[in-house]
């Protein structure tokens, strides 16, 4: 460590002779300790100060390279000072300085771009695979929700109004022609791109909510999943009544394979956190929650990306493809892509 200290002092190019004279004068051993190292500490303070002011770019490469070494030196000096020095001002200052340097050294890794590359290049899939059991639970919940929605509406059509807020022409008693019109022939409609942006921001907020509610042991997440898929069930029942099931599935599949997949993942992420809080196992609840939360956050970042894709598909591809078969082909292709990308493709194993 002292060799490193000499090297760093050399880089600094301070007046070594002058320092040496002051060190000689000091009567206390702890003061000599302080005077010998103060130059390095001050340099660390200056580097850390630059980082704190957000002037990372103005730091020289030399300073950046020296930062970890200076940090470790200061941390070890703090340990020594605590055991050998009663200069309270020095110990307090070293504690603060070590802390500030710790923030700089162990802070978030600079470069969101690099993180994103790692995320898309395998990190996302790894995170999704690691919450596998929760995905199964969320999937079952969504299937149950759809079935429940269907059964509720078929037993009493009044349920439809409770499940589907906002009255448009899609309601019980609508003729086949009316329903068909909602599925086809909107290609020349205007305002599609605005619609896409709105859809995205709305869906993203819902899925973030599904994740965030996982904090309450996951129960609200399940409820939200059931409620959303019950709407799907009710819609399926409505179009089934007019013999348009196949057409509706085609209409939904273009963006639905992506959107439902994203909602599935968001729900699973929420459940993952909820499960860790409800059943932490041998770990402390907070540790378990933190571990699960970090994993689920990765999944959620992916969910937001998927929802952007879903909104684009919903607004453009669906309206431009005006027949059931191409819609089904596109939807199936995208579903296969997501499954392949998230579950099959592995890297660095």
């Amino acid at each position, binding site marked *: 460590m002292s060799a490193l200290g000499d090297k760093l002092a050399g880089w600094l190019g301070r007046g070594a002779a002058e320092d040496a004279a002051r060190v000689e004068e000091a009567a206390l051993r702890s003061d000599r300790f302080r005077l010998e190292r103060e130059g390095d500490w001050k340099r660390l303070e200056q580097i850390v100060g630059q980082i704190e002011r957000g002037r990372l770019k103005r730091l020289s490469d030399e300073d950046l390279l020296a930062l970890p070494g200076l940090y470790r030196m200061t941390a070890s000096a703090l*340990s020594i000072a605590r055991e050998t020095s009663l200069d*309270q001002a020095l110990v307090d200052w070293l504690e603060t300085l070590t802390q500030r340097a710790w*923030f700089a050294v162990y802070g978030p890794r600079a470069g969101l771009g690099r993180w994103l590359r790692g995320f898309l290049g395998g990190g996302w899939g790894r995170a999704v695979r690691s919450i596998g059991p929760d995905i199964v639970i969320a999937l079952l919940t969504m299937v149950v929700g759809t079935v429940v929605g269907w059964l509720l509406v078929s037993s009493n059509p009044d349920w439809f109004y409770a499940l589907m807020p906002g009255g448009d022409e899609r309601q019980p008693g609508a003729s086949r022609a009316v329903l068909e019109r909602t599925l086809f022939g909107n290609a020349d409609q205007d305002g599609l*791109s605005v619609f896409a942006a709105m859809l995205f921001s709305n869906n993203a907020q819902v899925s973030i*909510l599904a994740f*965030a509610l996982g904090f309450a042991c996951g129960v609200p997440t399940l409820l939200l999943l059931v409620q959303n898929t019950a709407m799907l069930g009710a819609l399926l029942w409505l179009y089934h009544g007019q013999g348009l099931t196949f057409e509706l599935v085609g209409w939904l599949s273009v963006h639905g394979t992506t959107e439902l997949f994203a909602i599935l993942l968001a729900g699973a992420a929420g459940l993952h956190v909820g499960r860790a809080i409800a059943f932490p196992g041998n770990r402390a609840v907070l540790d378990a929650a933190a571990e699960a939360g970090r994993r689920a956050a990765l999944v959620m970042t992916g969910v937001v990306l998927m929802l952007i894709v879903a909104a684009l598909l919903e607004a453009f591809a669906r309206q431009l493809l005006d027949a059931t078969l191409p819609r089904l082909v596109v939807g199936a292709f995208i579903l296969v892509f997501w499954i392949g990308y998230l579950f099959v493709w592995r890297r660095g194993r």
Partner: protein
Amino acid sequence: MSARGATGRIVPDAERRKRWLTTPEGVALPFVLASRGARAGAVAIDLFLIGAAIVLTTMALLWTAQGLGLNANLKGPAGHALQALAIVWFLAVFLARNAWFLAFELGPRGATPGKRLLGIRIAARDGGRLTTEAVIARNLVRDIELFMPLVFIGGAASSGGDTDVAGWMGLGWFALFMAMPFLNRDALRCGDMIAGTWVVEAQKRKLGQALSLAGAAAGPSATTGVTYRFGPEELSVYGEYELQALERVLRENRAETLEEVAATICGKIGWSAGAGDERAFLEAYYTQLRAHLERGMRFGRRKADKFA
């Protein structure tokens, strides 16, 4: 607020908010948790800035639309231009709501503008690296802690008192999330729990001069020319606690306190040093007491205070 610690001394609030973390190098560091007031203030500032950003964006877009002579009834290329502006608006609002905290906390300073103004920042609770995932996790949960309750409260206010039972229950439910920082010792909000982070004060401090190098610490007094020397029995009456108190007195450097302390020490060790040269006397006593205690430390004997 203050409470009595184990030693019977009054423990200030900052002391009670102190937590020890061990860095990966094995050095224990003290952290002071940010007070709930500071955090609330930081959020208020950030929300204000977010609101201002949204208003400014909206106004800029409206102004652009007006300048280009666009209105909602247009078709063709002009209509597309209007659509593009609408998309920009939606994305800007979404980003302001979700990315504001994220982008700032992922920066090298680990704090949003509000936090920076109030001198606080986020840190990993285990002393390790603050990861990108942790920052994302803690900010995704902000939605149910902050924005959803605000939406609910706004809904309750706009419906003018006749809110239904479900509305009130929803409000209570979200109030629970908002109140979370008050329900645990470390003032963690839900997002902190999930992410494994906490909010601490970003302390800054200037290094004080070493008192043992200045003035009469090592040599004769400038005013009287006397060199104060104390024997081992005169130095062994005090411990580290008193040494630190003496250090504070010397740094504050107020004449009446110096006189009082010098008189107390003289009384204790049976000296009569005379008036007028208290600072030199105390500097010499401080330096020699520190030398005495530090010698003891090197041999593994520590004296916490005068009772030890």
